[in-house]
Each structure stands twice: as structure tokens, then as C-alpha cells.
């Protein structure tokens, strides 16, 4: 820090009642900010301390990894608006693309780490009340009379977009009616959603804590977490016959790390997700590890079901899927009209 920048900070700091100076200190070395999405809270809380130990052992430097959580789209927006993230670990590639479009992340980000920069995967499952009283076993059962569905808003939540796409893929591929069948299936489905929460965690709390709805469309890890937190005597997890492989990606925010001088530690942080320890921790928190050994060690924790991916021709990758389904005036806007 140069003397002139120091004095400038001092002047501005006193102008804002000391706040800026305090912020400048908070942004100093030895800290790393991971801006993530909703259901990863517990995983990254544990991973952050694991990484701090590894980094200390490797370099002798102390590091404090901080985390910020929220709906994936909202978090991407905050990074675009200036939240000083060193790394982003979001729910879908589209949200990182949105940051990359603003020039904060290099365009080739998805090729920089193995497996499309997704160190773990997940899928979409159903969480139902104990004993599955409405007998919901697969997607078509969701339309049974009297079933109320909880899922967050696809406009703000990454998980909600995966929920939507899983339902769409099932309808297109398994109900033999093509896109028209998918459209009417989802229209019916969203009529059974009383209210759309903004993030996956909000939806889980609505279902679990406030007792809303008969079924929660959820990330596999989120369903398992609710299961673990509230006891297996309250809920059952239902694996539908067909779902989608969700690949939550990670990236270093190039512009921020270069300005803050944190590139080395930020890159190490993301690489640590791919190490055996990182993979085992992901599996512990119910994310499907990429590493075969870690997956095998998890045993029957992750049932193998038939899954499609976002790169399937029916979607054609995130950019196309986003434009077709979730942008203003897209399929979702035509399908979901509140109060109908």
C-alpha cells in the first residue's frame, strides 16, 4: 500500500465515519471469500477449515476462508455488483457465465479445472412426508389431485432451474408427447406450487419447518440434510425413475484475485475440492464425488438412476436452456402465472 493511497483512504475513511478504513482492513491478506449458493453451507463450513489446515501445513501461512450463501442467481448478481469474491461456487454454469460476460472471469473458465470445473455433482429428488402418504414415486404422480408441491423460483434459484429441467426432460423423453407434453406437464405442476421461495434453502425450510406441501423437489444433498437434521421418522426420500445430472461449477474470479493478490490461494482452494479429502468431504455432505474411489467408498449412499444432462440435445447447454426457458418471456414465464 502506497502512502498516497493510505492518506486517500484516511480522508475517505473519516468522511464516512471510519467505515472505509475498516473495510480496507477487512479486505486485507489472509482472507479468502467464497461466494456460494444456498445448500452448500454445511459443506463449505467444514471444507473451509479443512483447507485452512492444508494451506497452513503447505505454506505456513494462516488463511481464513469466508463464505457467503444465497440463491445462485442472486449471488452472481452480487459479484457482478462488486461483492469481492475470490472464488465462486455456484449452482449452475450459467450464473458463472453471467459473471464472465461482465469481464470478471476469463471466458475459458470451464476448461481450467477437470470435469467442466464441477468437482461434485448432484441430482434432483423428491422429499416426501414419512410413509409417502400421497404415494409419489415418479414425476407423473406429482399431478395427482390434492398434491401440493414446494419448489423455489427458477428466476432466482439455481436448484429450482434444475428441478424445472428435470421435470421437462422427463416429460419430453418419457411421456412421448414431446415439448407440447412437457409444456402442459409443467403448467399443471406449477399450478400445484402455492408459493415460490427465492432460494433452495428457503423452500426446504417451508417444507420441513413450516410443514407446507406434500413433496419438496430438492437437491439430493438438501433432501439428505433435512433428513439428517430432522430425523428419518419425519420424511422419506424418493428417487424418481429419471432425473438430471446437476453439475455445480466453481471458478476463480480473475479480476478480483488479481487486484487483491490472492490468485495462488484461490486456485489452491478450488484444486483442494478435487483431492481425495475434498471429495470424501463432498460425499459426506451428500454431493456425488467425481472421484471413483470416493464414490465407491460412499457405497449405497448415492443410488444410480437414469439421468440426462444439460448438454442433452433437448436443452443444448446452459446458454440455450437459459434463453429458451428462464429469460423474460421464455417458457417459464408462459408456464407460470401466479394466482391461476
Amino acid at each position, binding site marked *: 500500500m502506497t502512502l498516497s*493511497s493510505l492518506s*486517500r*483512504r484516511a480522508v*475517505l475513511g473519516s468522511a*464516512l*465515519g*471510519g*467505515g*472505509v478504513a*475498516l*473495510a*480496507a482492513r*477487512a*479486505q486485507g491478506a489472509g482472507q479468502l*471469500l467464497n461466494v456460494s449458493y*444456498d445448500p452448500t*453451507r*454445511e459443506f463449505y463450513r467444514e471444507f473451509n477449515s479443512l483447507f485452512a489446515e492444508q494451506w497452513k501445513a503447505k505454506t505456513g501461512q494462516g488463511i481464513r476462508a*469466508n*463464505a*457467503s*450463501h*444465497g440463491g445462485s442467481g442472486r449471488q452472481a448478481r*452480487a459479484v*457482478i*455488483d*462488486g*461483492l*469481492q469474491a475470490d472464488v465462486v461456487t455456484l449452482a449452475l454454469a450459467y450464473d458463472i457465465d453471467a459473471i464472465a460476460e*461482465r469481464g470478471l472471469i476469463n471466458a475459458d473458465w470451464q476448461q481450467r479445472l477437470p470435469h467442466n470445473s464441477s468437482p461434485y455433482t448432484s441430482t434432483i429428488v423428491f422429499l416426501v412426508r414419512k410413509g409417502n402418504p400421497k404415494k409419489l414415486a415418479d414425476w407423473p404422480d406429482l399431478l395427482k389431485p390434492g398434491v401440493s408441491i414446494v419448489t423455489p423460483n427458477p428466476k432466482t434459484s439455481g436448484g429450482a432451474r434444475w428441478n424445472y429441467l428435470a421435470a421437462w426432460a422427463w416429460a419430453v423423453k418419457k411421456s412421448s408427447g414431446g415439448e407440447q407434453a412437457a409444456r402442459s406437464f409443467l403448467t399443471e405442476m406449477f399450478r400445484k406450487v402455492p408459493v415460490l421461495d427465492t432460494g433452495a*434453502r*428457503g423452500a426446504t*425450510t417451508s417444507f420441513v*419447518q413450516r410443514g407446507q406441501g406434500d413433496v419438496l423437489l430438492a437437491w439430493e444433498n438438501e433432501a439428505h*440434510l433435512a433428513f439428517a*437434521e*430432522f430425523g428419518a421418522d419425519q420424511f422419506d426420500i424418493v428417487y424418481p425413475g429419471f432425473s438430471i445430472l446437476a453439475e455445480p461449477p466453481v471458478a476463480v474470479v480473475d479480476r478480483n484475485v488479481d*487486484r487483491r493478490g490472492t490468485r495462488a490461494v484461490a486456485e489452491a482452494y478450488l484444486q483442494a475440492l478435487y483431492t481425495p479429502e475434498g471429495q470424501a468431504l463432498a460425499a459426506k455432505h451428500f454431493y456425488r464425488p467425481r472421484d471413483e474411489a470416493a464414490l465407491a467408498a460412499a457405497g449405497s449412499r448415492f443410488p444410480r438412476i437414469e439421468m440426462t444432462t444439460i448438454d442433452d440435445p433437448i436443452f443444448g447447454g446452459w446458454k440455450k436452456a437459459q434463453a429458451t426457458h428462464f429469460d423474460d418471456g421464455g417458457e417459464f414465464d408462459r408456464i407460470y402465472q401466479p394466482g391461476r
Partner: protein
Amino acid sequence: MTPATAEPRAIRWLLVALAVLLLGAFLLLPLAAVFTEALRRGWGPVVAALADPDAQAAIRLTLLVAAIAVPVNTLGGLAGAWCIARFTFPGRALLLALIELPFSVSPVISGLVWVLLFGAHGWFGPWLQAHDVQIVFAVPGLVLATLFVTFPFVARTLIPLMQEQGRAAEEAAATLGASGWQSFWRVTLPQIRWALLSGVLLCNARAMGEFGAVSVVSGHIRGETNTMPLHVEILYNEYQFVGAFAVAALLALLALVTLAAKALLERLGARRGGMA
């Protein structure tokens, strides 16, 4: 003594009972719920939740933000109320409207304006980035949002009182040769001190409790930019219900102490004069 109302006694009792019942249901019940939920598993988890480093950081940050916002708004509110109550000038109605603006604006907007001004893509964003100054998603943003939201409290408490008092006492002081400062310290301030304190306390209660506006500018970095209300939300979303209610109870306690202090001041003020 003739009764002021014509209604039969039963109706009057019914109305009073209804009011008490509604008050209990809407105010006391939620308050009681916060404390019982917090203490559901005894004092141990409550103490643990409050001793957590992230909770400690949230408490410190909340106090810091209030410590900046309240004095600034006290001075600003005092100046604004003085201008409006003592003088007529072009734009007086506009100034009054501006002072009241934060009351009528949704807290989300109160937060968003700062993102639009100081965010990376805001009006001053590029300049701030070039000079390595972080305002939104850092403490200055929280201070600004709180300043904005709590701005009207002091002025709104003072204006009616000062208008009622009029400027006679100050004019008398001036004719006796008092300077502006002397008149302020010896005449104006003693007349309004109780109302001023009550406005300051209200301002403080809101500064510590504000959620919406600070949520927009916070960035939700735990241990760094989470105030107490935001920390409550985080804990609740992480299924740490006891912790969430413990912090909420502390927040409610701070508000209750503030209100009790305000009530006490009003009684003192009523006895010694100087209150509306």
C-alpha cells in the same frame, strides 16, 4: 361525575378485553415465543450461540453501525427540525417531504439505491474500483443504508414540539443579547432535550434492528458484513433454530431496553416540562 360514554358497562368491558386480547396476540405472544424458543434447551446453547465468533462479529458490527448512524442522524435531524420549525423559506415543504422520504420508501429500495450508486456497475462504481474503495458489500454500505433508513426519527420527533413551542423564547434571548450558540445551548436545547432523547432512542432501535436495506448491501459474508438481524436469518436457514432465537432474543432485549429507557425519559420529561 357524568360518564363520558353512553355505552353500557358490558360493551365497554368487551371492547377493552378485545383490545387487550389483540395486543397480546400481536405483540406479547411473538415476543414470548422468541424467548421461549431461545431457552427451549436451557441456557447452555444460548450462551454458546452468543459466544460464537460469527455472532460476536455480528453484535460488534451492529453496535458499530448504530454508533455511527445515530450521532450523525441526531445532528442532521436536529438541524432539519430547527430549520423547519423556526423558519419559513422556499422549499420548506420539500425539505419536510425529503426528511420523511425514508419512511415511505420500501427498505429494499433504500438498500438498492446504494448498489446503483456505488456498486461495480453503479454511477461511481468504476471510480471507486480504480481507487480500491469498497462501499457496498462492506461496512460503509451498511452504514449508509442504516443512515438512510433511520434518518427521519429524530427530526419527526422534534418538529411537532418545536412548532408548538414557537420561537418566542429564542427571540427573547436574542433581544437580551445572546449569541446564536448561547441561545441554542441555553434556550433551544433545554426546551427539547427530552423529545430529542426519545427520538435518538427510536433511531437507535431501528438502526440495530433494520433488516431489509442492510440485507441488500451486505453481501452476507459471515463474520464480516453480517449484522445481528442478518445473522438471525443465516442461523435460521442453517437449521440452528436455538441459535437463531438466541440472537433474536438479544436483539429483542436491546429493543425492550431502548423502549423502557424512552418511557422513563418521557415520564421524567413530563414532570420537568419540555415534552409535548
